[in-house]
């Protein structure tokens, strides 16, 4: 009975969460996050595809910069790129065995994410004050759908980094390499969120 319970516990352990699998050359979480990101490319790709279809099919299409808040969106672009830098620094410090600085840079990433969301909140508030809603026009529908979905991804990142900053950091005492890998995987997701914004910003605000 005891041997059976021990065997079951052994089976539940996720293999290759630190060392790479011999056949893939990657640890499982890294392969998993890349597959997830591939599905995310298709999700945002479908929305970009819809935008192109609507824009080329419309007789007139508003140019975002004539009424959207370009300076605020520019600041948000800088903030997201800065957060990508801080997450790389967090991972690099953890690799060097420096938890204190690693957590500090995770906190920096979180701060950037919160600034981004607050700015986005101001932007949405202004749009609603001007009576511009998703039902107002195709442009506004696309704008709210794409920036809203992107904002939800930022919010998801905030939840993940909050977990790794506080309760998740306990893993550092028991399994440093696995904790560092978790930050790398979360960082890959975060860079993708940054990457989506890099294309959303000119598409919606400048063109």
């Amino acid at each position, binding site marked *: 009975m005891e041997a059976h319970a021990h065997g079951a516990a052994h089976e539940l352990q996720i293999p290759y969460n630190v060392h790479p699998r011999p056949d*893939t*050359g*990657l640890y499982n979480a890294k*392969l998993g996050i*890349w*597959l997830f990101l*591939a599905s995310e*490319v*298709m999700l945002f*790709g*479908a929305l*970009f*595809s*819809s935008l*192109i*279809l609507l824009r*080329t*099919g419309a007789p007139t299409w508003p*140019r975002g*910069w004539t009424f959207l808040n*370009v300076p605020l969106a*520019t600041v948000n*672009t*800088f903030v997201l*790129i800065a957060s*990508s*830098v801080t997450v*790389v620094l967090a991972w690099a410090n953890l690799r060097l065995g420096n938890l204190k600085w690693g957590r500090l840079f995770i906190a920096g990433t979180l701060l950037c994410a919160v600034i981004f969301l607050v700015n986005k909140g101001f932007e949405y508030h202004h749009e609603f004050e001007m009576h511009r809603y998703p039902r107002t026009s195709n442009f506004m529908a696309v704008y709210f759908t794409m920036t809203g979905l992107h904002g939800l991804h930022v919010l998801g990142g905030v939840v993940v980094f909050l977990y790794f900053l506080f309760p998740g950091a306990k893993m550092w005492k028991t399994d440093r390499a696995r904790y560092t890998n978790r930050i790398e995987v979360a*960082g*890959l997701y975060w*860079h*993708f969120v*940054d*990457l989506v914004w*890099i*294309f959303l*910003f*000119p*598409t919606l605000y*400048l*063109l």
Partner: protein
Amino acid sequence: MLTALTVWACYGLKMPVHYAIMIALAIACTKGFLVAGFFMHLLTERKLIYSILMLTVFFFAVLLWGPWHHFVDMIGHQ
């Protein structure tokens, strides 16, 4: 710097839409390459990741082909 350049080129110069689209997308692609290549370590990644991404790029191209085909068809009818 590239972000500032995009804003200046599209917002500051107020150039025709088709030029602005080309410039903005070229700068966005450069920024995307820098983020994916260096921050996401894609320049030195395993072959399996490249295979996954190649498949993604193929399906992404199929997604974009639809609207592009519609656009070309629309021009043909005008």
